[in-house]
């Protein structure tokens, strides 16, 4: 039962534009949560966000420890070799406790849950990638125009 008189959200399109762990997870959690509520869900990966669906990269995504004020550490500390790997392993442990899966498993889960996954054509061309570079859950590589077409009637969320 809703707490107000507004129409419930029926459809969302979530854009994932960053390739760090902290850049990828929020979008995946929002997408999975949307499917759990029965909301029709589209995920659009663009720019470095593509790393989350590139077969060779998706298992190596790390927390950004430099230029990330949320880490609460001075930039020079974040730049120490191994710092990003350390922060990543700490965060992965915490996420596992909350039942948040690793990225590859998460992508499989949202896809099985019925979310549609798309890669951004402009980014794919810029990075000289082909459909073969992506995990099997990616439905299609589409243009921005096609993305808007698919998103008709949806709330668009940029992350």
């Amino acid at each position, binding site marked *: 039962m809703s707490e107000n008189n507004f129409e419930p959200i029926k459809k969302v399109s979530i854009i994932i534009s960053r390739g760090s762990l902290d850049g990828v997870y929020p979008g995946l959690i929002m997408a999975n949560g949307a499917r759990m509520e029965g909301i029709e869900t589209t995920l659009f990966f663009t720019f470095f966000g593509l790393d989350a669906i590139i077969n060779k990269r998706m298992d190596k995504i790390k927390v950004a420890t430099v230029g990330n004020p949320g880490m609460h550490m001075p930039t020079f500390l974040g730049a120490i070799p191994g710092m990003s790997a350390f922060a990543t392993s700490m965060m992965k442990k915490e996420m596992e406790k909350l039942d948040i899966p690793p990225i590859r498993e998460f992508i499989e889960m949202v896809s*099985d849950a019925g979310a549609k996954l798309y890669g951004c054509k402009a980014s794919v061309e810029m990075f000289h990638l082909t459909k073969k570079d992506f995990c099997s859950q990616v439905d299609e590589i589409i243009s921005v125009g096609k993305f808007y077409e698919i998103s008709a009637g949806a709330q668009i969320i940029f992350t």
Partner: protein
Amino acid sequence: MSTIQIAGKTLELDTDGNIVNISDWDENVANEFAKIEGIEKLTERHWLVIDFMRKAFQEKGDSPSIRRLTKESGISTKELYELFPQGPAKKAAKIAGLPKPKGCI
């Protein structure tokens, strides 16, 4: 707080429309709630999910996450969404006589 007349009983409901008193629940209640949720007949596979959710709730005090549900019950994510279309965790919890799951995953 509202009530519902179901399976010959008057049951108290919370603001999400889920049963307040877990002890009010029985198989007939589950069948009736399933019909309300658009599931005409609960199959053996539905019951596997329902029983797992009730067991997990008794142990942890909250419904299991979809990930735990699929990993431990042996029902795949795809099948779970087929069994309980339009929001499996929420629907299965309602049919199982549990509150709406609190978790995000």
